Structures are given as structure tokens and as C-alpha cells.
């Protein structure tokens, strides 16, 4: 028996080894190396800059920088803009496509397309739409006597322009998750609520929403983590401009690492970003475990 257990453990280790090696090579080692870099002065372009240990200097520089604080504010602002609209639209569309109406199956499939497109392509699609002189959006608005608007080059519009592109791409994700939750709801509470004479809004507010709440929280936190890391669409549409209107945390990390080539500072900023995401995830799990009736 002991021999079999020992042999099984060996086989277990052999089968686990490739996964552990891949995980170590692709996740753990780069993270450890980034941690090492974050305590060093490391300039990839300027080989004459000494690559030395600098202690917490990179972290101190980031945390005391008004630029970093600004990018954090922009990131959370964008997150709030996209998540709120995605939640409302996603739930609304899910309610619509789960109705037994003709064509809803096809509509549901078509609505998922934006989610399947690479964010860089989404950025390019919206770049063609937003382009001030030759963009389709201004072209069509001109028939209504409106515009032209500098969608991505105006400090008033640029963040909204990015939010709209992100909302277009990721609302289907919220819709899909919500629709799945709605489909699995038991019909009895709805019938009872209708018999009690509740309006459709009351039914939604008092019966539907409480039941799908855990799913919505999961979807929102998954989206929040994604929104926190948004990069591709901004890189294609504005590269952080005009001014620093759309300079989010990921752009800050990119600029430090690949424009100024200060890999140490970039790595430190990545770790600060990681801490923020970990805090978000912790909050997420705490809120999931909380009993809504105690609130």
C-alpha cells in the first residue's frame, strides 16, 4: 500500500512538472525578475547609465509623483464611466434577449461579436469612426448639421471616446453573463410577484435583481480588473493624449519602461498596480462572502 502511495506520488510529480515549469517560466520568474528590477536603476537604451541597486527609490519616486496620482485618477474615472454604462446596458440587453421573441437567438450571437475582436482592432475601428476630418462619425453627423467634433483630440471628449469604444466591446460580456443567470432563474417567484399585482419594474427591482446580484458582482469585478489594465484601445486611439487626459496607469508604466527606458521605475509601477489589483480582488471576495440580508 505504502509502495503504491509512493509510486502514485512520483507519477503525480512527473505529471505536475511540465505545468509547474511553464508556470515558473512564464509567470513566477518574470514576476521575480520584475521585483528585482524594481529595486534597481536599469536603463535599457542608455547602456552608460550604471545598473545599480537603488533600494526603495523607484517606489518613492512613483508614490510621490503627481503624474502617477493623475494616472490613477484617470484610470478610476474611466473605470467608473465604462462599468456603470456596461452594467445598465448589459442588464437591459440581457433582459431583452432572454424574452421569447423571434430573432433573439441571432441577436444574441451577433451582439457577442465585439467581445471576440482584439482590442487593437477595436481601437482601429473606432479610430476610423472618430478621425476628425475623414471619420465616419463626423461624416454622418454632418447630415444633421452637427460637428465636426475632435473626438479623440479634444480634452472634453477624448476620455468619453475611449469609454464608448470599451463599452461597445465589453457590454456583450455583461449581457452574456446576465442572460445566463436570467435563464437559470426559477419561474415561481416571478409568477407569485405578478399575481400580487407588482409592476414589471417592481418585479425586476425586487425579484430579478436580488437573485442575479452575485452574478452581477462577479461580472463587475472581472470587468473592473480588466478596466484597470486597459491599454490597447488607448494606445491606438490617443496614446494618453491630448495633454494627459487619457493617461491611464498602463500608459504610465509603458512610457516609463519603453519611452524613457527606465525599466526599474516601470517595474516598480507595475508592482504598485499589482497591489491595487490585489486589494480590488480581496474586496471582491469579501463582498461575495457577505450575506446580503445582513447588510
Amino acid at each position, binding site marked *: 500500500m505504502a509502495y503504491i502511495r509512493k509510486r502514485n506520488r512520483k507519477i503525480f510529480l512527473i505529471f505536475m512538472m511540465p505545468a509547474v515549469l511553464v508556470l515558473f517560466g512564464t509567470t513566477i520568474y518574470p514576476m521575480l525578475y520584475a521585483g528585482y528590477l524594481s529595486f534597481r536603476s536599469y536603463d*535599457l*537604451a*542608455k*547602456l*552608460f547609465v550604471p545598473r545599480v541597486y537603488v533600494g526603495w527609490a523607484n517606489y518613492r519616486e512613483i508614490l510621490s509623483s503627481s503624474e502617477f496620482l493623475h494616472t490613477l485618477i484617470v484610470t478610476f474615472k474611466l473605470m467608473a464611466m465604462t462599468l456603470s454604462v456596461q452594467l445598465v446596458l448589459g442588464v437591459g440587453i440581457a433582459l431583452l434577449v432572454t424574452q421569447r421573441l423571434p430573432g433573439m437567438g441571432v441577436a444574441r450571437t451577433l451582439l457577442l461579436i465585439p467581445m471576440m475582436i482584439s482590442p487593437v482592432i477595436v481601437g482601429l475601428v473606432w479610430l476610423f469612426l472618430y478621425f*476628425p*476630418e475623414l471619420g465616419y462619425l463626423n461624416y454622418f453627423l454632418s447630415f444633421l448639421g452637427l460637428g*465636426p467634433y*475632435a473626438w*479623440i*483630440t*479634444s*480634452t472634453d471628449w477624448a476620455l468619453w471616446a475611449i469609454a464608448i469604444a470599451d463599452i461597445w466591446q465589453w457590454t456583450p460580456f455583461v449581457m452574456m453573463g446576465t442572460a445566463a443567470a436570467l435563464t437559470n432563474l426559477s419561474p415561481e417567484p416571478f409568477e407569485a410577484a405578478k399575481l400580487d399585482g407588482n409592476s414589471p419594474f417592481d418585479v425586476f427591482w425586487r425579484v430579478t435583481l436580488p437573485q442575479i446580484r452575485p452574478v452581477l458582482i462577479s461580472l463587475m469585478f472581472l470587468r473592473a480588473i480588466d478596466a484597470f489594465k486597459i491599454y490597447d484601445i488607448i494606445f491606438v486611439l490617443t*496614446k*494618453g*493624449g*491630448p*495633454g*494627459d*487626459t487619457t493617461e491611464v496607469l498602463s500608459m504610465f508604466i509603458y*512610457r516609463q519602461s*519603453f*519611452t*524613457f*527606458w527606465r525599466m526599474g521605475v516601470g517595474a516598480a509601477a507595475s508592482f504598485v498596480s499589482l497591489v491595487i489589483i490585489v486589494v480590488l480582488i480581496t474586496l471582491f471576495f469579501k463582498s461575495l462572502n457577505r450575506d446580503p440580508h445582513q447588510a
Partner: protein
Amino acid sequence: MKHFKTLVVAGAVSLVCGGLASAGEFDDVELKMLAIGDTSVTRLAPIVGEFEELTGAKVQIDQFPYPGLIDKIVIEASANTPSYQLMWVDSPWVGVLGESGALEDLTDLVKRDAAEINLDDIVPIQLQENTWQGRLLAFPASGMIWHQNYRKDLYEHPDEQAAFKAKYGYDLAPAQTWDQYIDIAEFFTRKAGDTLAGETLEKDFYGNAQAYSRVAGAITHDFFPIMRSFGGQYWDPETGLCAMDGEAALAAAEVMKKLVAFNPPDYLGLMWDIRTGYMERGETAQSSYWSVRTVRLTNPDEAVLPTIGEAGYAPSPTGDGNAQPTMTGALSFGINSKATEREKEAAWAFIKWGTSRDMMRRFANEGSGVSQFHKSILSDAGLQEKYPYYQVLLDTQENAQRRIFHPFYADVEEVFGVELNKYMAGETESAQEALTNACTKINTRLKVFPQDMRLRWIADPKAEIFN
């Protein structure tokens, strides 16, 4: 007899190639070039097969947009086994690439082949542009100066001339001062439905188009030449620290801010190519930019303007109308210092072939010239008729000043790009605040280094090829 024949054939080929390399000499070499998709390369790329026929070396040119190209070059330079033997180099990058030892020193090769490459015929500042601490690290493939382009047909229209004189009290002519430039921009800014040169406009017409985008520091590519035209310099010669927040820089930032009202509404996103597009489509009265794209204004296949009007060319305006050395720049080819000796030989042969006077004259004759850098081509009467801006190029380079070449150029370009863009967008209240912010950030990075090092970085000893 057989050997004699071979010698004759080899001699003939050698003559045809201008002493370049013998046929098949580099049969075993494959060269890859990391390059930009702009005139200095796009003219050459389709005909690299000719080089292969001459020398046997295969050449592949990979073209990328300017933004991000230096990133690829830096990564390539930091690799131990290079994928690219040839690199396209914008002259401001010479400092960082030179200090890091990424580029092969071409000084001795140029001295050796001086006669073959007609060294004396090249505008000297174009060679100086490519030096780092006196050593030549790249060879010009296109020479640039910053100058103004304008709608000659509109400036010469009698109605416009009369209206301008009545409004501003002086004759309409290419601006000599920035105040005049602003007047002209204001005068020509018209709405759809207004009249321009006797015709009703179908769409808005702009008085000016400049680069204001922060992407790849595009705004700085216009700001620094304007700063220079006010007599400004990049660095403090005593300390080697940032001097781009002085009076000249302030005046330049304010000129650009005043011009905002006469630019297209998407001015904050105007990259150099979008900006030149307005001029090429004839949608702006004037636009000052680097001469690398000026050639397009003469070619109806590449621009609308030659079909609807005529472009005129003049030196950059200055602060007070008195001459100031204009900024120049060079778009060049360099050799990766980590390439093998054999590859370096072939790469140098390619550079000589691709930048030769004959090749440049051929481009000019075909109507698809690059921004030229040979004195004999720029002063050729026949070519000047075809490319009227040649005279401006020739004259201004007589007394031109080298562009920034500091190892921290990327930092300067990015930091000033963002700060100036914020000021133009109204996010920063004053030009002084924007410039002080930018200089403070640059100085924080520079002060880590000893002063003698900083002073060495801004020193520009005469290229050793001239000794």
C-alpha cells in the same frame, strides 16, 4: 587571354558600379535594414534588387512608422545577436546610440572612400549631424531643414493682396517674422461659404497647420525650430542642464499657442504627416515643416496642391526678422556595430550605393526626389526649376545649426511633448509653467551625472572626416 577578359569585364562592372563592389562580391551576405516608411527609404526600397545584381548581397528593408521605430532600434542594439545589420537613423538619436556603442564608426571608411562618395559635394552640416564626439556614426540619405511652405497662388492673388494690405497695412508676402506669420494665418482662416481667391469655399480653410500632437513628441519637432528662430538653445553651456525654458522657448510656445485658433479643429492630434496632409491637399495657407516631405508638394501623384494651385517656399520666420541659423536634420543609414565584419563591408557598400550622388540625381530626375544633400544637385538650375525649394535648402544650410543630439533626446522629446501639448490644450495655465515643468523633469534625470559628463554630451567637436 582568359584572365585578361575576366579583368576587362570586372573592370567594366567596377566602372559601372562607380567602384562600389565587384559583381558577386557579397554573394554570401544577407542584409536586413530596420527602417522608416518615409521618402528616405521608400524611394530606395523598390530598387534594392539592383544592388543585389551588382554585388550579390540580398537586402531586405523592413519599414515601420516613425513612432516606435527608435524602440525597435534600441532593442536591436541591446541584443547580442543582431537581426538587422543596417539601421535607419534620425540624427537626434546619434547621441544615445553613439554613447551606447550601438553604431559602427564610419569615419575611417568615409575618409578612405572620400573621392568615390563625393564627400566634398555633401553639405557639411549634413555630415556633422551624424557625428557623436566627432566620429561619424551614420551617413545621410536625406538632408532636412525646417522651413515654411505657403500657397503661392493665394499670396499672389490680387484680391487677397489688396484685402490683406487694407487689413494689416503691409504687403502680403511670405512671413519674415512670427508676428507676420500669425497675421497671415488669421487672414486666411475662412469658413465654408466664404470667398477665397474669388471662389466660394465648400469647406473650412485654415490659415495654418502645425504639429501639436504629443505622440512621439510631434509638437516638439515644430517647437524646437521655432525656439531656434528666436535664438534659443537646448542646453546651458555652463552646466549642461536644460535651457529650454528661457525667453526664446517662451516666445516659441506663445507663437504656437496664438496659432491654435487658425489651425484645424483637431490640432491637438496633428502629427507631422497629418499636418503636412493639410498643405498637400491645399487646405491651409501656410505650414512650416521639415523639408523631408516638401518634395510631395511638387508631385501631382502625391499631393492635390500642384493640381489646384502652387506651393511657394521660404526660410523659417524669425523673432525679429533678422536671420537666425535654421535647424537642420539628417535622415541617415548606419551600421549595427554587432554585425560581422563581412556584413559591415556589405552594409557600407549598400550605404554608398543607396546614398550616392548618382542615385540622388536619379530620384530627382524621376520626380520622386528625397530631400537632397549634395551641393551640386541643390544648385542645379534644371532641378531648381523643377523643385523650387532647393534654393531655400541650399541657402539656409549655409548657416544652419545642428539639431539636438543629446543621449537623453527621447526623454526631452517625450517630456516636452506632453507638457507643451497640455499647455496647448489649456490644461496648463502658462507657457512658463509648462516649460519649467519639462525642464525640471529633464534636469532631475541629468543631475545624477557629473557636470563634465553633461558638458561632454552637449559638446559638438568638428567631425574628424573633415580633418
